[in-house]
């Protein structure tokens, strides 16, 4: 018998900003970009302000089921900041930080969870896909878009986010494999928040990391602290840059924690301990970035007060716009089914509109 090592792999894990807000090791380039650091911070605070308002709207019957992004702000906002406007984003369903960075409006997010398709029309974001509620399907759309970019020799990148549970789906493996086989300009970010509704990571997979799922597809995979905005920004910037210059796809596992229930329809107390959540709370992303900014004298109490007021004002305006939206016309159900409405649907439409006008509608 002859046994040799056919291949050898390892997964690196990277972080710069520890939970106390102190830099560890050699800092990344972004640390010297004070302006960008402050923009990231402002957006993270805006997203959290929005998120807590959205939950309050749901609790008071003014919004449907809502998926909170509490705790994911660093991962989501850093992805948005690392992408170019002409790139395309393929979200799962709680990446508001990325979306707000890319021009999606808060009232559109509310409209989506408020049961209104005008929320996915994205009036100022023509390219990005809307939320993908069926798990992992969006990873294939990202690969498909990347294939289009590659075939047309466009220097554009598709970026998609998937959860830890999503990495158990076949579509995820198929997307990674296609990205490797075709050498596609796509970046897969796994937002590993430790819980797929009630299923903890340990029950989801026997893998030590989710980043290593890249290995089987022949892609580079890296793990980063997903609550460290510097680490996520650097990793995504690197991956997007590599993809844009013909270097192919990458997988980034961002380690974070879902501090909220899965959605407002969920009660996480049924399956996880308060102690675990309390512990995770100490590692949340916004406080540590604020501590860094403060220590570097980039942020003052006055700026903080002004930011909180500004975020509140923006969120209130978005809520107002959402509430003023009203019900869409019944005809909207029909009018976007096909580019041109077929005869049989024209008849259904006419009937539905006639009934709407009658007492029995």
């Amino acid at each position, binding site marked *: 018998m002859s046994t040799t090592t056919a291949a050898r792999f390892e997964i690196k894990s990277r972080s710069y900003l520890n939970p106390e807000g102190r830099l560890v090791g050699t800092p990344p380039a972004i640390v010297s970009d004070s302006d960008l650091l402050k923009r990231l911070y402002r957006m993270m605070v805006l997203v959290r302000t929005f998120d807590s308002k959205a939950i309050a709207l749901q609790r008071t019957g003014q919004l449907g089921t809502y998926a909170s992004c509490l705790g994911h702000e660093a991962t989501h906002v850093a992805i948005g900041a690392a992408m170019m406007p002409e790139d395309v984003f*393929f979200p799962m369903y709680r990446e508001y930080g990325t979306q707000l960075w890319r021009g999606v409006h808060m009232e559109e997010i509310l409209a989506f969870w408020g049961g209104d398709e005008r929320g996915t029309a994205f009036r100022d974001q023509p390219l990005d896909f809307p939320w993908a509620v069926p798990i992992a399907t969006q990873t294939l759309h990202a690969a498909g878009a990347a294939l*289009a970019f590659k075939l047309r020799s466009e220097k554009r990148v598709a970026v998609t986010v998937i959860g830890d549970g999503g990495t158990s789906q076949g579509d995820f493996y198929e997307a990674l494999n*296609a990205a490797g086989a075709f050498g596609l300009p796509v970046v897969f970010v796994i937002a590993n928040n430790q819980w797929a509704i009630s299923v903890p990571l340990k029950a989801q997979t026997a893998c030590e990391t989710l980043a290593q799922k890249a290995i089987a597809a022949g892609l580079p995979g890296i793990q980063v602290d997903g609550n460290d905005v510097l680490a996520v920004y650097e990793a995504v910037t690197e991956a997007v840059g590599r993809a844009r210059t013909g270097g192919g796809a990458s997988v980034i596992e961002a380690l974070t924690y879902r501090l909220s229930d899965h959605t407002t329809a969920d009660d996480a107390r049924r399956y996880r301990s308060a102690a675990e959540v309390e512990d995770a709370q100490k590692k949340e992303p916004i406080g540590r970035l604020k501590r860094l900014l403060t220590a570097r004298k980039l942020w003052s109490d006055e700026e903080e007060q002004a930011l909180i007021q500004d975020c509140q004002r923006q969120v209130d305006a978005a809520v107002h716009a959402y509430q003023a939206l009203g019900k869409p016309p019944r005809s909207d159900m029909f009018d976007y089914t096909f580019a041109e409405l077929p005869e049989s649907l024209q008849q259904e439409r006419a009937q539905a509109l006639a009934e709407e006008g009658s007492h029995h509608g």
Partner: protein
Amino acid sequence: MAKVALVEAVNLALARALADDPQVVLLGEDIGMNGGVFRATVGLQERFGPNRVLDTPLAESMIAGLAIGMAAMGMRPVAEIQFSGFIYPTIDQMINHAGRLRTRTRGRLSVPMVLRAPSGAGIHAPEHHSESNESLFAHMPGIRVVMPSSPTRAYGLLLAAIQDPDPVVFFEPTRLYRLNKQEVEDNGQPLPLDTCFVLREGHDLTFVSWGAMLHETLEAARLLAETERVSAEVIDLGTLSPIDYETILESVGRTGRLVIVHEAPRTAGLGAEVAAEVAERALYELEAPIMRVTGYDVVTPFFKLEHDFMPSVDRIRRAALQVLEP
């Protein structure tokens, strides 16, 4: 003008689309160097290059999902599913995304893709190669389902499907791939979608069918004329969703009798849909109950029994005689 079989007409249409529109890209398993397991794409990679005719890894959900992403970015992907029983992994992508994207983005994004797949039994193929699954896709909003029944219609309808701004599932009856040759003019002209084709005019009864079953249906109509002096109209549905009911209702209004023939299993098959619509809208013009001649509600048998499963000329003929009974 060359005489070509249905599979060659598909090839001609694909070549024409590739030549006319740089956004058209073919993708699928073994479609490049190998030219497809049924040879529908033979010679196309050689002619248009590996960036227009792509051999993909072996995963059907991936093929559909990639096509959706490409189409939303403005390409016109034409994806091939290798065998009819392999199409089911695409259902999630087709129903949850291909058919919904235009609606849920209020027209901001759309999915001008074609999913080509073989359909039906009758070619002595292995298990999972002989299914008729058109009604699964016809039930999906936002998706067109098309099935040609001749080389001419394969050419024209496939061009129309590729040019259509919305997703189309295009079923190719494998039994017809090489059955009859027809003169097909490679003129780049699409045939209309959402429209039935009247293949034979008649006044005693109306047959509605699609795909390979039109072969048996036309033969039954010929025999009925020859031996029973019955004049049967034969309508090819062409587009199976949405259905052109006006042509069917006009015909049934004249003949008063309707027999629907399809190879797929009976229950919740498209025949039920056609029958229900005609009953709702033209019951008082009918002179006999509507009849369906279909595959049975059984697992598609292995090929030794496949001809016992598929409606025969005789079964169709007998159904016609039954509705013609005074």
